């Protein structure tokens, strides 16, 4: 039987991208391949400026840094569709866009899977301060029906949350990454803090990203 082909989609601020983001994608690929899938592509999609966090620098730079970060990879690429939208796009719609784009380019049998950290899954059943749910449950149901890859994080139990929410098809469509080689403890927040204080960030993100940050005096 031919292996089913998949594309992994990672969304985030990438402000800046770190080895943590890149390792998460490598671990996801290794784990999916061990379960019999063929991973043909990985897409990193920076969020648009309309997302509105004050520490978020312009998406032009975040896309260029993501591009620089994946330069040495033979399967990852940065994609600017999401961040070039004038308004904020829901994760579901970003996923739908890429699913459509990938299927038209690679064929209808190729699926796009959304990659998220276990901490994100744990917010699926959480409420905002005003009593509304953080997530639109219909959106999550639709994301799950397309496909979800979850990176476990220390102290989080994504499988338990998913079990409780019991989305249709979650047992088939949700893949929890096994055997993480380098647990992600590198955060963009701590990199920004270090850059502000002129401390070294070498070996926390590819040299190409550091060169770009320096050239454009970002996060000073």
């Amino acid at each position, binding site marked *: 039987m031919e292996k089913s082909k998949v594309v992994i989609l990672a969304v985030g601020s990438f402000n800046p991208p770190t080895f943590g983001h*890149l390792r998460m994608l490598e671990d996801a*690929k290794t784990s999916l391949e061990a379960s019999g899938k063929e991973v043909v592509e990985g897409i990193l999609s920076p969020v648009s400026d309309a997302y509105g966090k004050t520490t978020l620098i312009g998406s032009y730079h975040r896309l260029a840094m993501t591009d620089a970060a994946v330069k040495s990879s033979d399967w990852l690429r940065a994609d600017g569709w999401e961040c070039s939208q004038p308004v904020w796009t829901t994760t579901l719609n970003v996923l739908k866009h890429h699913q459509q784009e990938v299927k038209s380019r690679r064929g209808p049998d190729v699926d796009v899977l959304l990659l998220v950290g276990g901490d994100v899954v744990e917010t699926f059943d959480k409420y905002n301060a005003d009593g509304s749910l953080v997530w639109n449950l219909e959106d999550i149901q639709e994301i799950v029906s397309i496909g979800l890859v979850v990176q476990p994080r220390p102290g989080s139990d994504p499988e338990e949350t998913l079990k409780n929410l019991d989305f249709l098809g979650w047992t088939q469509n949700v893949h929890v990454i096994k055997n993480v*080689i*380098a647990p992600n403890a590198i955060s963009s927040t701590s990199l920004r803090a270090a850059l502000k204080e002129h*401390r070294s*960030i070498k*070996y*926390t993100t590819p*040299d190409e990203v550091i060169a770009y940050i320096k050239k454009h005096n970002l996060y000073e």
Partner: protein
Amino acid sequence: MKRVALLAVGSFNPPTIAHLRMLEVARCHLESKDTQVVEGIMSPVADSYNNKSTLIKASHRLEMVRAATKSSEWIRADGWECTRATWTRTLDVLAHHREQVQAKFGSDVGLMLVVGGDVVDSFTRILPDGSNLWKSADIIKIITEFGLLVLSRDQSHPMATIQEMTEIPKNLAEKIEMIVDDVCPVSAVSSTRLRAAISAKKSIKYATPDEVIDYIRINDLYRSS
């Protein structure tokens, strides 16, 4: 301004991002305290260190450290220790490199040892034959005559270990520089994990520099499990 070079010793089997970060953080820490760091030296241990079957040949480990430090402006690999026929005590490795560093940069330059917290925990380790892995006289000399920088890691308690060692004078513990990598606590990246991943044909990209991965692939290292 005070000037020092930094020495990191270890198996580097293979070198990882964590080894490199340790030196970067040590340098940042010293420079924030008005000490100029003139050089960083990574010295792989010799093959005779032990008969661990997982330790691959020093020639390969040295080349991997060379590859790992290729993009650095201040860290270099050194093969003096690993090309010696017998195992060399860390104190003697320090003495050798201090001589080299002073000949190169001037007699005012000191040499400090940088280690992970897990190495300090090994100070109290007893070998199967009942002898101590470390001589306490060596530890005292390393602290007083050279200087010791310790990078905190999860699950290691270097300060507690030092304070429990009755052979070491209490005031010496204060001389040890404790450092923390709050930018990138990558202590979870270990050579052991990388070896397991390589032998299982899993990706180790972004856990060590690309140059190291290329070297491992070209020489077909760590493939037998």
